[in-house]
């Protein structure tokens, strides 16, 4: 984290020289709608001893508001790194990431936290619910961070669980008392808690059987139809069928 935190300053200078070039490329890929996520020549380099590993090697693209995007790639292709960038969990070694038109490199930890809290809902392959909290409390967590009152939280969390099609009798269940599909629904309800414009899903069907996976993707499609931008990282071609746009990534570079 420290590494990436200190680097943006130096990146910015380099970037101004190249931004014109990549700006054009970005525009070409974009429709007229305002892009909600924008990456310009993003590099993420990990240093392992003497070796430099290019997890992302000059990635540029933009995602317009309301799109349903899959980022496809095999494991180790850099797609998870990309997801972390968009999710404001990681900062690029060089290049620019803009979320909702805010340049992340200009933000400190608190700024990143705020952007993350208000713009991004995360859905993970492992569901990543907090095991000691009930379904309802898990959904309340992001709202708590947003400073909402407890009565309002409860009401909203129940609404979100309903939106995610979780039978309400499970609201008081702990994660280990629910099936994988139910847990993922709770996770989606949690991701929706603060009405983020972007849903970021990392292999959301990876731990689910085909039928449940299909149901979850249908749910994401419904949410997308209602206006949420959905970005799904996957290597599963079946998931791609739900998307409007697909970004393919290989060895840290976009191939299509």
């Amino acid at each position, binding site marked *: 984290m420290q590494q990436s935190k200190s680097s943006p300053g130096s990146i910015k200078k380099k970037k101004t020289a190249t931004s014109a070039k990549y700006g054009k490329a970005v525009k070409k890929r974009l429709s007229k709608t305002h892009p909600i996520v924008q990456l310009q020549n993003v590099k993420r380099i990990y240093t392992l001893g003497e070796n430099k590993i290019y997890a992302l090697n000059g990635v540029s693209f933009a995602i317009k508001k309301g799109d349903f995007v899959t980022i496809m790639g095999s494991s180790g292709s850099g797609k998870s790194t990309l997801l972390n960038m968009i999710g404001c969990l990681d900062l690029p070694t060089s290049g620019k990431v803009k979320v909702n038109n805010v340049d992340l490199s200009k933000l400190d930890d608190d700024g990143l936290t705020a952007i993350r809290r208000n713009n991004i809902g995360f859905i993970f392959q492992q569901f990543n619910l907090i095991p000691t909290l009930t379904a309802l409390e898990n959904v309340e967590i*992001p709202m708590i*961070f947003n400073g909402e009152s407890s009565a309002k939280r409860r009401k909203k969390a129940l609404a979100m669980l309903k939106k995610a099609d979780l039978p309400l009798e499970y609201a008081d269940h702990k994660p280990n008392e629910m099936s994988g599909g139910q847990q993922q629904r709770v996770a989606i309800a949690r991701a929706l808690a603060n009405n983020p414009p972007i849903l970021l899903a990392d292999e959301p069907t990876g731990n689910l059987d085909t039928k449940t996976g299909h149901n979850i993707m249908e749910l994401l499609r419904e949410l997308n139809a209602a206006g949420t931008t959905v970005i799904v990282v996957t290597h599963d071609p079946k998931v791609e069928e739900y998307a409007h746009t697909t970004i393919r990534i290989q060895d840290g570079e976009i191939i299509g």
Partner: protein
Amino acid sequence: MRYELLIALRHIKARKRQTILSVAAIGIAVMILMVSQSFMAGFTQELYSKTIENLPHVVVSPQDDEDYVHLYKNIVDKINNVDGVVASSPYLTGEASFKFKDNTKNAAIKGIIASREDAVSHTKDDIIKGNYDELTYSDKSIIIGDKFAEDMELDIGDNVEVSFPNANPVSLKVIAIYDTGTELDSSLAYTSLKTAQDFYDTEDVINGISLRLADFNRDREIAQLIEDYGYNAAGWTDNNPEILRTIAIETVSNNVTLGFILLIASFGVVSTLNMVVMGKVKEIGILLAMGASKSSIRTIFLIESGILGFAGAVFGTAAGVALALSIGSYPLPEGAYGIDTIPVVVRIGDVLTIITIVFLLNLLAGLYPAQRAANLDPVEAISTH
């Protein structure tokens, strides 16, 4: 309720076994702390009651270059009016040779006014045989220590010959025997002030005044007041520095030991919380991804260590007080140590101090793991665990 508190409580509730173990670790340390603090307080109180209670708190002696205090009645009146002085006892003391049958002994003889000496030094309490008050109305009488009596084969009613160069030899009748448990028992005999003055042939003089104070901690202050009148005066802390030294050594060694115990308990908290942080890496990552700020994460773990510390402090103190009181009520074999039970004093101030210090120490101990948790990289936390 703040959510940091909610999450911290959930953590604590979810790991019952670790919670009990870490509270017990702190609790045991605090219990030891509480018990030894009670012993320390009891020991100090016992030492005070055995020594300082029976010591003159301030001793007034003649002016420099003088052997005696003349016109002492005026001075005694003046001193009695000093605020904080509750009793005074003028005395004339000196050396004398004692002879009974074939036994001889050199010892100190102290001429006193029986009731006033008792008011200052509780001399009457030490009498094991005979009648102390007889000293008031019967001339030519003497009170000796039990060791003195043993050495000289003396008993109540015997007459001992007392003499000294330049003194008027006299025969004194043993009217009482005392036992203080100190070396005075073989080296000091009491007689009436009048008898002592006759013996040394010094009419109407004394060579010292013992004082008892309402608060023995004011000894130096009152000694100074009396010195301002032109006499030499010294408090018990100057006359018996070994008592203060004993208490100081006890206190210091006690506190050092207690400090180490607390340190161990605090390290217990650090390692427990560190383990908690390691076990919660993924959860912390999730919370960060859900929009928790670093300071929230830090607060969660600080609250946890605070709660563990407070619980440990409260349980430990309760257990310590119970243990100390039960040890304190256990009867010792009679006469073996000169006390019936181990002296134990539980002071509410000690209880509150210990709880506060342990609580604060645990908060401090929680800082490192809390900071570690706050500085976790959410990406690594979520993906690698």
